[in-house]
């Protein structure tokens, strides 16, 4: 029926390779969702059940959520910047870590996709993926 399968043009070859990168990317996102959701569930259970000590007991939160984010952070002595990473034994920050996995994983995957696109001979896509990873990294550490 279609005899062109054996004689792909250079453009078609690149598209096939890009399709392969997309499928690889899709598989990695699937892993990210599974890992992140499992971690989120486990961390939330540990937090709300009180199995893990927390500097912000869950039963105090309904008394605080009418405050703005800045006031709530001040009232609960929330650590600023990335210093929370040293306190993941605290139930409050363990749940926070599990939530951070979603955007962090997205950033990592788009960074991984960049060299894959380069190998697929799509340098412009590779550059855009790299720039996207840089934008996400900027949001993570500088804002």
């Amino acid at each position: 029926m279609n005899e062109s399968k054996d004689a792909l043009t250079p453009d078609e070859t690149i598209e096939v390779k890009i399709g392969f990168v997309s499928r690889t990317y899709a598989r990695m996102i699937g892993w990210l969702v599974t890992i992140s959701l499992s971690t989120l569930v486990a961390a939330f259970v540990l937090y709300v059940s009180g199995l893990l000590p927390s500097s912000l007991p869950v039963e105090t939160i309904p008394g605080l959520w009418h405050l703005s984010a800045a006031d709530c952070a001040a009232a609960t002595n929330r650590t600023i910047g990335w210093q929370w990473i040293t306190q993941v034994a605290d139930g409050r920050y363990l749940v926070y870590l599990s939530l951070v996995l979603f955007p962090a994983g997205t950033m990592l995957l788009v960074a991984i996709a960049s060299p894959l696109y380069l190998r697929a001979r799509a340098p412009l896509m590779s550059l855009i993926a790299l720039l996207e990873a840089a934008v996400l990294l900027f949001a993570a550490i500088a804002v």
Partner: protein
Amino acid sequence: MSPTCANHSSAARFVQVPRLTAILQTGIVRYGPAHMKTSLLTLLLIVCLASAMVAEPVTTAPTDARAELAPGTDQNDRNSVNPAPTATTIASPLPWWGWALLLFGFTTLLGVIAVIGGVGGGVLFVPIVSALFPFHFDFVRGAGLMVALCGALSAAPRLLRGGMASIRLGLPLALIGSAASIGGASLGLLLPTSVVELLLGISIVGIATLMIVAPGGSRVQLRSDPIAIALGIRGSYYDTSVGHRVEWTVHRTGWALVAYIGIGIIGGMFGLGAGWANVPTLTLLMGAPIKVAVATSGYIMTLNSSAAAWVYLNGGAVLALITVPSIAGMMVGTKIGARLLPRVRPRVIRRIVTILLVGAGLRSLVAGLIGVIG
């Protein structure tokens, strides 16, 4: 008939709650990995909340949480922001688990409506939850973005594997949109709440108007513009509904990139994500086929929502007790909605969604106006 089909047809008789129970009970055996994740999430959340209810059945929130926090504050003093004495706590009419269950149930319903109404979860979540729940607007927006991000990530693998989502189309737009959404999110946390609420009201009423006046589709574009050619934005897919392969490309790419600056700012500032704007921009402005636009929209949302989510996470605007039940509820709701979709009339639901949005938008607008004037 396969076990899945048999279950599908027999379960059609039931209302949502028995269906949800069936999903929870049989997810591992009959529904495959995608449903397993949702089932596991919901089951664990319910087990966890049930255990908390048994452990402390009449607990209410303490009126002064600062007293409980005091012992742990010394070790954090070096790292913490200034503990302002102005912050006050209020007594809650419900215990924490009551709020979590209420939010879970409500977002499940929102998830069902979002799928059937064909709108993003974020655009429903923020205006409606901020209208009905006592949470500060910052936390609603933070949760809205996390809900949009998790929903988009869950759907992305299937969309990308199916070949309908185009990364060539989505990535350049997402780059502009995510950079703008960082600015929008930062601005949203800096501006007074009343101003943000007023702007949200205007935006939501505008989105509802767009839903009313926008035509259902557009002619598929076959001629590229220079930017689309340079970026290699084109593709083809086999459309089973018409029985032949559809070749497509896009035009007005420059205008779309400019539009994504605005979409990113609005999505980030109000925690709406970009689901409300992706499909109209990709189809009406760029001329992409509707199926490609819907699939690519999910991919764009993963990146735009990620960028803005960082700002809310770093700003302390994400509370686990609001965010986790919302994510779980929305995921379960979208699964139920997808199954109910063939059995309901989307046009009726879409009208209901539009009315809901107009109502929530007007409430936001009025509340914002009162705050700004007052």
